[in-house]
């Protein structure tokens, strides 16, 4: 990470784009806005899991497409960074392609598909399968930052509940699942407790990815553009999924392996391949799957 936070007295033009888009500041946002976001980020890192309000700007993409994540990325990225953007684990989906292209244009940074080469990874709905390192930052796009929102519609009340650690109602929703279905059925955006204090929405990642957040060496930043909130999990911070003593937290498992690379340990997407409902299972993390195939692993090739 080579981002330099400019001295307050430094000229705002110092980090103007060397190779960026003419007429635009480096990484699209002006330096004052970036400074405001960085202040929010510092506060967020200091209080793990706490939602810090920030002055979210209008970005050249619609709400729900990653306006929060893109602002956080713009605030932390430097000219030497290598950016990877994934959407549902894949590098080649519309959202990922357009955000990657956006930063390639406005910041002139190098981009990559390879998880290990990236220094900043912006993600929607997944954490890469390859363990991240201390030299990486993971930026999440968050649609609804408030984990208590479905249970308590009043914002003033949810803030008070966070302040006073009144999280019993979170377990009420898990209780409902068990009472109705015999197990906790919530499969994504599964609530976690960060550093033993704040309950946090991990953004709509599958609960399969929740254990990866626990004591992750990389810095995790969360941006919600529409809701104007930033929160963070610093490196090596405890992140525990909520559960009951007699109904412990469990992640999804599959009977199948990846049809392309044969992986047994990755999150699999179900793909329907014809009109008769024939299906195959493939890794959702497209980079992980390709790396494995390049290393000689092979799946059964899916339905014949």
């Amino acid at each position, binding site marked *: 990470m080579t981002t330099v936070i400019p001295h307050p007295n430094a000229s705002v033009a110092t980090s103007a784009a060397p190779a960026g888009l003419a007429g635009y500041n480096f990484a699209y946002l002006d330096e004052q806005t970036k400074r405001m976001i960085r202040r929010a980020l510092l506060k967020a890192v200091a209080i793990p899991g706490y939602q810090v309000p920030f002055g979210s700007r209008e970005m050249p993409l619609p709400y729900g497409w990653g306006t929060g994540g893109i602002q956080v990325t713009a605030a932390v990225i430097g000219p030497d960074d290598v950016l990877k953007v994934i959407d549902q684990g894949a590098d080649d989906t519309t959202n990922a392609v357009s955000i990657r292209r956006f930063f390639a244009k406005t910041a002139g940074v190098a981009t990559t598909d390879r998880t290990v080469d990236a220094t900043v990874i912006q993600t929607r709905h997944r954490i890469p399968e390859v363990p991240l390192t201390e030299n990486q930052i993971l930026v999440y796009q968050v649609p609804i930052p408030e984990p208590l929102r479905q249970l308590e519609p009043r914002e003033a009340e949810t803030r008070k509940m966070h302040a*006073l650690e009144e999280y*019993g109602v979170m377990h009420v929703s898990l209780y409902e699942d068990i009472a109705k279905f015999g197990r906790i059925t919530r499969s994504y955006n599964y609530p976690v407790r960060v550093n033993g204090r704040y309950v946090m929405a991990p953004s709509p990642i599958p609960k399969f990815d929740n254990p990866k957040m626990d004591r992750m060496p990389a810095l995790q930043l969360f941006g919600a553009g529409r809701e104007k909130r930033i929160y963070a999990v610093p490196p090596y911070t405890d992140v525990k999924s909520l559960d009951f003593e007699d109904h412990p937290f469990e992640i999804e498992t599959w009977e199948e392996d990846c049809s392309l690379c044969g992986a047994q340990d990755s999150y699999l997407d179900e793909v329907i391949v014809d009109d008769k409902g024939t299906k195959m299972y493939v890794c959702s993390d497209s980079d992980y799957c390709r790396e494995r195939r390049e290393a000689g692993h092979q799946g059964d090739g899916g339905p014949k």
Partner: protein
Amino acid sequence: MTGSVRDPLLQVRDLTHHYGRHLGCRDVSFDLHPGEILGIVGESGSGKTTLLKCVSGQLQPTDGSVSYRTRDLGPVDVYGMSEARRRLLMRTDWGIVYQNARDGLRMKVSAGANVGERLMAIGDRHYGHIRSEAVDWLERVEMDMGRIDDMPGTFSGGMQQRLQIARNLVTKPRLVFMDEPTSGLDVSVQARLLDLIRGLVGSLGIACIVVTHDLGVVRLLSHRLMVMKGGQVVEHGLTDQVLDDPQHPYTQLLVSSILPV
């Protein structure tokens, strides 16, 4: 436990509340002892509900004090303690039964979850235990076990009130506030509910403050009675004494306005 059984559980002194220039209630003082049931009657707009809200920690009074004898620290000023502690008190040692069950219940979760919520709020993390407590309490308020996973919205008014009571009593509170618990219910359901409340409160030794405009309710439930008019207490005494020998003209009017059946 601090203090003896003879010390009051709740002490209210010179409680006054103004809504701007408008008077809610004025100079109300009383003591409530453990296991005692106090009825507050009066016409609409007489300040009954304002008084209940002030006493139960939901509305900071303009003037006066409310002191509650906590289990660990003895008498504590309810509005002097931290908000965190007051809210903890309200959901463990106190119960509040609202007139409208919708105010007191979580309508989007099942009956069982409604009863279990307080247990989870104080840190119970064992599903089996929460479930068995919920079953136990639904039985004690005479509800059908087959409906434990139904939404409160599918229940009748009387069942919703009974569910509210179960939800409040699950943490074994020492003090329960009831705001018109039986209004809006038909008389037979009302009678059953009153019977249930009287039985539970008596067997568990819970102190109660019941606000109502129904003299029949207070005659059945309460030991002592306060009559309010225009924001002030006009008469105060043992229930039977006040109802049989009313001194204040307003109380006399109130008692004489009961329609004979």
